[in-house]
């Protein structure tokens, strides 16, 4: 590059000089700026470039006199600002005119270009004109020898403290191939046993890696460098008496298992590189890793893995060899095992790929015979292979359950034993906890007839909401599959439960008693998803009684399983199950459990109380009636607990022979605590006025119920429901609609309902307008990126537990039920919920400031 003629400017440029003192820009004064080559005095040849500012008010006084040296890091910012570091002090010139600034900058820039060309690096020639402004100057590192390690360490430590310095440093290191020059020093220092030098080397290497430069890190894990780099990091001055053995670990052959030879040299190199990157991330740098470096490492690993998997899946020869291993009866067991583990690792990587790429990978695997691998794996005697196979299966189900369902459908058509039966067999005999819970999850997902919909609808719908429509959209294959399941597999799956019939001794093998908990999970899920089929199954096999038997075994965790099942039945609030509970007198033994444990305050007791509190809170009249009529004495014995007193009061009230006042007192009390999602109004702050509309609702609710609900449901006989056995959706909806009819005179479409309610502020439904809690979920979503520890970060892990969580969470379900009541069948709680959301924005904005402030104050954790 030709050196431009320094622009000797004679007319002075008006400028303010600033200096950074204690994080504040201190104004040194205003003056006129000159930038020129000044002849050095005392006979030395040559000139040096200087920037000077002469004070405006007192000519001859210099506000600034600085020599342009190469690592001052001059930068032009905006149009009128030049900043740099002068002997460690941050300086800034603020020009009055952009033109003047540009002229001075031109001079400085040209001088800096000269420095770069002196160093012989024209790395950025191609883009220099635009980028030169932002480009940091190059630097000269001390020679790589033991004697200058001290200098080197100090210099790079200083450099790495500023963004410019880091860039410059990173460039020099790569350009000078500095890492390779440092590596021999490690062995030299080891030879002369100079621990101080080794410590310096370690520090230098740490700084270099934490510069967080992709090229440097890639270079550091290359075949040539990696051992030297981790070698240097073995001597950590933070642990002076320790030496790590990274080289030994990475050097040992045989960590890399090559099931089928990968021919491509470059891919093989990438595989090793990826392993080293992981080792760096997890072991060598784990303690000192900062977030930027962590993400640089992660993205390097990720892109490598993408390349590797892409290469493998398109390599037909490779895939044929790989899956051929399972077809060969003479193949060694060990090699088959390794092949399973290899595929497992592929699938684990695939989870991070984009869905289309993942789809291609699985398709290619399936074409080459993945089913047979899973079948081989699930039945294998080696636990590691079974774990591998379930993992593979789970990752495919996670990706696209429909793909597996269709495969099962084809198996059924072909009269082969379907995959679900294999899974069921495995679940019942498996002792490995991990496999068991994964199999249990797969049995749930595979039998979930819900078509994939918006995520908030999946697994979070409780009770009968929206399920009617879902039933209709089930595909015919799904029907066949479900029919087959309930005809053949269900009995097999729930055999341990069914076998309890007639059993009096409740002793279980410690290893296997966990199966009940899984069966309960699965059954609860089926009950929520399968409607009639599951109801029939529960009734036909008298499962309530079976669970009741568990109450009499001495293991408390099994008793808990039973209580959990009953709770699920109650949560659904479906007449069928309510009647099942009553007819089979299932709650009596639960009361006995409570009476038995009551003086003590343990988990069992809490679970029972939770169940009865739910019945009382939701005011499930059939059950309250059943309880009081059949177990009045037991309940009286427990009446010192609020819940049970309430149950009796509710019963007496509904029968019409109790004093009215206590009932109202209690429900008033409840009102203040029964609005769980409104942080401002609910809870202990009863000095707040009770919402008048809400109040009205509570005062008027009984009348309505007398008209709309009491008559068909708790009246003399529930004739409407007996007329339509098993068809609970319609009957459920009927009930709701007749309630609606009373309130809004005509049951209409959801939107109609909503608008009507807006016009008629006195109808109970309109309480939603004034007392709607802020929609916290949406609020959460909005913030999710900011929060390090926020729960929402886990959204992608959520699926596996979501069903369990929703079934377990008493509060959420109770809330949902309450909404359902308030909003008339929950139909105007539309997926996009216009009403609540609008309100949430206005409420939340005021709270947000506080939240943001708090977030800034404390590191969340």
């Amino acid at each position: 590059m030709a050196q431009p003629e320094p622009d000797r400017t004679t007319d002075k440029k008006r400028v303010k000089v600033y200096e950074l003192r204690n994080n504040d820009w201190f104004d040194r004064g205003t003056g006129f700026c000159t930038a020129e080559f000044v002849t050095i005095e005392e006979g030395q040849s040559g000139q040096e470039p200087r920037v000077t500012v002469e004070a405006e008010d007192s000519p001859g006084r210099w506000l600034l006199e600085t020599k342009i040296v190469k690592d001052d890091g001059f930068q032009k910012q905006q149009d009128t600002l030049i900043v740099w570091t002068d002997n460690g002090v941050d300086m800034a010139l603020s020009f009055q005119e952009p033109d003047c600034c540009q002229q001075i900058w031109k001079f400085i820039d040209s001088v800096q270009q000269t420095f770069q060309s002196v160093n012989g690096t024209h790395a950025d020639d191609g883009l220099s004109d635009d980028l030169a402004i932002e480009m940091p100057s190059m630097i000269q590192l001390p020679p790589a020898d033991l004697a200058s390690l001290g200098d080197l360490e100090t210099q790079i430590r200083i450099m790495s403290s500023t963004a410019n310095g880091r860039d410059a440093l990173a460039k020099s290191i790569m350009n000078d191939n500095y890492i390779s020059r440092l590596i021999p020093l490690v062995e030299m220092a080891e030879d002369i046993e100079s621990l101080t030098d080794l410590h310096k080397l370690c520090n230098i290497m740490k700084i270099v890696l934490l510069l967080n430069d992709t090229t440097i890190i890639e270079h550091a894990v290359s075949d040539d460098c990696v051992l030297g780099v981790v070698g240097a990091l073995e001597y950590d001055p933070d642990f002076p008496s320790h030496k790590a053995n990274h080289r030994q670990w990475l050097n040992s052959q045989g960590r890399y298992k090559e099931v089928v030879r990968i021919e491509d040299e470059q891919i093989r190199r990438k595989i090793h590189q990826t392993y080293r990157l992981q080792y760096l991330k997890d072991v060598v740098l784990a303690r000192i890793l900062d977030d930027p470096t962590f993400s640089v490492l992660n993205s390097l690993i990720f892109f490598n893995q993408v390349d590797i998997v892409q290469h493998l899946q398109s390599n037909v020869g490779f895939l044929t060899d790989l899956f051929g291993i399972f077809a060969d009866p003479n193949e060694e067991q060990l090699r088959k095992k390794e092949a399973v583990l290899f595929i497992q690792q592929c699938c684990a990587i695939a989870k991070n790929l984009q869905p289309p790429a993942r789809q291609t990978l699985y398709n290619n695997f399936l074409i080459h015979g993945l089913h047979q691998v899973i079948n081989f794996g699930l039945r294998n005697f080696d636990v590691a292979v079974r774990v591998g196979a379930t993992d593979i299966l789970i990752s495919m189900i996670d990706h696209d359950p429909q793909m597996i369902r269709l495969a099962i459908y084809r198996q059924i058509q072909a009269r082969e034993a379907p995959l679900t039966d294999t899974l069921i067999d495995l679940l019942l005999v498996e002792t490995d906890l991990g496999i068991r819970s994964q199999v249990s999850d797969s049995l749930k997902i595979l039998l979930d007839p819900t078509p994939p919909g918006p995520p908030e609808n999946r697994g979070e719908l409780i009770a009968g909401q929206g399920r009617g429509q879902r039933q209709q959209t089930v595909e015919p294959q799904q029907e066949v599959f479900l029919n087959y399941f309930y005809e053949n597999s269900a009995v097999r799956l729930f055999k341990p439960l069914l076998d309890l019939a007639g059993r009096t001794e409740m002793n279980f093998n410690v290893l296997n008693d966990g199966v009940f908990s899984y069966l309960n999970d699965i059954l609860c899920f089926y009950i929520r998803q399968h409607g009639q089929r599951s109801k029939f199954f529960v009734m036909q096999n008298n499962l309530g009684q079976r669970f009741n038997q568990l109450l009499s075994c001495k293991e408390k965790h099994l008793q808990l399983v039973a209580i959990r099942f009953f709770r699920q039945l109650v949560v659904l609030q479906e007449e069928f199950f309510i009647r099942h509970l009553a007819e089979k007198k299932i709650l009596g033994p639960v009361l006995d459990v409570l009476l038995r444990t009551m003086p003590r305050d343990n988990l069992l007791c809490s679970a029972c109380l939770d169940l009865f509190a739910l019945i009382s809170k939701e005011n499930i009249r059939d059950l309250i009636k059943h309880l009081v009529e059949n177990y009045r004495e037991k309940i009286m014995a427990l009446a010192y607990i609020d819940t049970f007193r309430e149950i009796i009061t509710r019963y007496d009230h509904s029968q019409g022979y109790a004093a009215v006042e206590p009932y109202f007192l209690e429900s008033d009390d409840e009102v203040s605590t029964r609005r769980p999602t409104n942080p401002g109004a609910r809870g202990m702050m009863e000095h707040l006025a009770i919402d008048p509309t809400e109040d009205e609702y509570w005062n008027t609710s009984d009348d309505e119920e007398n008209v709309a609900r009491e008559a068909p449901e708790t009246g003399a006989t529930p004739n409407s429901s007996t007329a339509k056995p098993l068809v609970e959706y319609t009957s459920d909806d009927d009930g709701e609609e007749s309630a609606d009819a009373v309130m809004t005179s005509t049951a209409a479409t959801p939107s109609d309902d909503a608008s009507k309610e807006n016009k008629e502020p006195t109808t109970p439904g309109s309480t939603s307008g004034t007392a709607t809690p802020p929609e916290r979920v949406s609020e959460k979503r909005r913030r999710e990126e900011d929060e390090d520890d926020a729960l929402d970060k886990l959204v992608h892990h959520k699926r596996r537990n979501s069903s369990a969580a929703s079934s377990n969470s008493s509060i959420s379900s109770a809330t949902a039920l309450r909404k359902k009541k308030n909003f008339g069948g929950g139909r105007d709680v539309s997926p996009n919920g216009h009403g609540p959301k609008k309100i949430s924005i206005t409420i939340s904005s005021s709270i947000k400031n506080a939240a943001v402030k708090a977030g800034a104050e404390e590191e969340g954790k």
Partner: protein
Amino acid sequence: MSDLDKAIAQLRACRPIPEAQVRELCHKARELLIEEGNVVTVTAPVTICGDIHGQFHDLMELFRVGGDVPDTNYLFMGDFVDRGFYSLESFLLLLCLKVRYPDRMTLIRGNHESRQITTVYGFYDECLRKYGSANVWRYCCDVFDYLALGAIVLGASNTLSPNPEQTDVSEEDVEIEVCNADGQIMTQFQRQSRRKAGKSPNGAGGAAVNGVAAGSSNGPTGAVPSNTGPPGSGASGASGGSIGNPAGAVLCVHGGLSPLIDMVDKIRLLDRKQEVPHEGAMCDLLWSDPDEIDGWGLSPRGAGFLFGADIVKVFNYRNDLSLIARAHQLVMEGFKEMFDASIVTVWSAPNYCYRCGNVAALLELSEDDSGLGIFARSNGDVGRSDGGMGGGGGGGGGGGLRSVLENDLKPGPARRYRVFQAAPQDSRGMPAKKPVADYFL
């Protein structure tokens, strides 16, 4: 039991125990924990600890500073796992000690004792590496579901037990004593009569915030005794009141309060055996944070709530509590009292994540000799629901609130904080994760 002792010895040496033994341990722990209420009753003396986060060597340092296990009663307020590199060893050791000395160890659940959180923040990964499968993680998660949600400490004295390191016995009206790791007193605060307008909660909070900033420079030794209290005890001394009424109890919970829980007894009604839900009372208890606000606020964490001084004071009054001890938030000084000492955050993971530079603390409550403070609190207490306490709750409305805030708060029990730093680097070996052994890809 010798098997268990062997396991304890092995874990103390930071070596994991075999999977079969973990399973057995977890089954024993389950039997034990199932018998505990959602709110465990603990009697003083007890030493209360905050988050541990898998910092095994610092846990050993904690035991060194606070006394070893059968000799000192401990209450750990959750977050045993994640972040640090020895979650497994830390949690299993605590669990072993719990099984071995059930009456002397209390473990309650933190928000990190959950399947979802541990899959993201390290514990899952660690189990996978150390055992080659996630089974141990699953065993541990099963135990998490059984952990209690909170604890009530009864019978804590208003006077400190004598400090063995101190020759001149301190006067009896010391309310707060801060000691260093060697037991030497760094600062003491006398009980004071209530200051009416001396310091608004906000002012106190401001001081504490400044303390956080300053604390990063020099840790606890930089604390200078002054009127405003040491860093971390912004409102120290303000919880005065009549001396000699030990009836107030201390509620320990990982996160904080919930809008759904106005009485401690309501916590007892939860079926806690489940994954920590995303909302609801159980979630809030594990996720909420106190904050300088009025009433309730949305939490930036996305779960739980923020709650202000008014909430704490009303809750404490209604439940006859003198103090709420919680963990969940990093405090640079190891502990931080807020809202006129009605709530304290205790943090027991020094140099959190091996780089935060904070110190840790534990809170000692000593035993009240009179025995007045101990009475059973459970659902079974006749009269608790329809008598005295219920009346108190009802009376809290309207004008009652003002009197709550100004007069009727219980005096805080005498509190001794022991502040300690991270275990010396050299004693612990290099903390690192276990590398993946074999690789195919």
